[in-house]
């Protein structure tokens, strides 16, 4: 047996903890499977992409989305944990928004699912509030000097999602085709959407 200060392999810790909780009737395999399947298949950035594509093609929806993100996102059926109050930030040619949670990894689950590894990593969390332009450049997004950067630290239960700019040359695309172009990274603000 390892001593309490020694690092225990996390996979083994999870197995041990899960087996104790299951034994005590506090957890069951079916619940685990349901949760995992939900966040692997139904709750992810494809939801946010639908919101963005609708905002790009329906000016009334766009206005509602920017005025009350939670309600407009709820219109498409997206709600749930980590989505009690969602604010949508509109990127424009002059202003670029980017979202972080420096204290943990708060993220708008109903529209983006669970956060990717880089979002939870201390490098992103420490640096994007101090040198966002440099961080965006490392991600491959080189913004013009004239573009104003606004960083949003998700420190309360308010969650933020970026409405990226619709790329030029996509006028002929349907809402569903547009949704296919929208990436998770663009909805966090570390990338832009590009035309196919």
């Amino acid at each position, binding site marked *: *047996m390892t001593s*309490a200060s020694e690092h225990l392999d996390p996979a083994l810790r999870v197995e041990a*903890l899960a087996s104790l909780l299951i034994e005590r009737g506090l957890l069951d395999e079916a619940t685990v499977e349901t949760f*995992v399947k939900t966040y692997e298949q139904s709750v992810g950035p494809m939801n946010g992409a639908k919101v963005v594509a609708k905002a790009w093609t329906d000016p009334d929806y766009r206005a509602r989305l920017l005025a009350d993100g939670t309600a407009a996102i709820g219109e498409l059926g997206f709600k749930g944990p980590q989505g009690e109050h969602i604010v949508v930030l509109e990127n424009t040619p002059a202003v670029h928004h980017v979202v972080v949670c420096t204290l943990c*990894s708060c993220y708008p689950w109903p529209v983006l699912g669970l956060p990717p*590894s880089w979002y939870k990593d201390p*490098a992103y969390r420490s640096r994007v509030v101090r040198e966002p332009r440099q961080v965006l450049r490392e991600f491959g997004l080189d913004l013009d000097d004239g573009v104003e950067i606004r960083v949003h630290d998700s420190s309360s239960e308010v969650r933020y999602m970026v409405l990226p700019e619709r790329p030029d040359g996509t006028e002929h695309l349907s809402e569903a085709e547009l949704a296919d172009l929208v990436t998770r990274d663009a909805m966090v603000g570390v990338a832009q959407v590009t035309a196919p």
Partner: protein
Amino acid sequence: MDGIHDVGGMHGFGHVEPLTDAPPFAEPWEGKAFVIGALSARIAGGNLHAMRHGIERVPPSEYLAGYWNRWTIGAQLMMEDSGIVTEEEVRARAARLSGQDVPEPPPPAPHKPQMATGGAGNLRSRDTPPAFAVGDLVRVAEHDHPGHTRLPRYVRRRTGTVTALQPCQVFPDTAAHFVGEDPQHCYTVEFDSRELWGSNAEPFRLSIDLYEPYLEPAR
């Protein structure tokens, strides 16, 4: 608390990880870790804020040893506080799962916290009106206790402008310790990067959501 979790503005973590389309769980145990953490507040009779405080109390070396590692240990700490499991039990069970024939210690006696709650979620109302309005200049307070807070180090003692009123919410600083929900008004406060990082800072604006007790009028 001034812990390893409060990384905003720290140096030394190197390059950001590359962007990928990786699935949420790289391996099955990560999915199981997620579910344990997601259900831990219910299992322990705790709440989201106590769970976050658990993660903050993970020793720095463990905190930095991967996201699902700190997430699991944080959830376990909250469960330990409620007498659901002990570290000794987890270690013994891990040893047995690895084929070692070690005795298992007896389980602890559960003692879940009891705190009145205003319902599901964290949005609440408050009788007193907000102390600040959009456009007000505010100074962020100091923070001087080892308990949970959502006031990161890098904005303390800085001056910014209120740009939005957010919904009134459960106050994490009290709820994490089961003292009470004590709902607070919450404000988006915007800072010029030079106020945070000095005159040579990259030009940008930073917004952060701060609860009313974290703020005082700027003079």
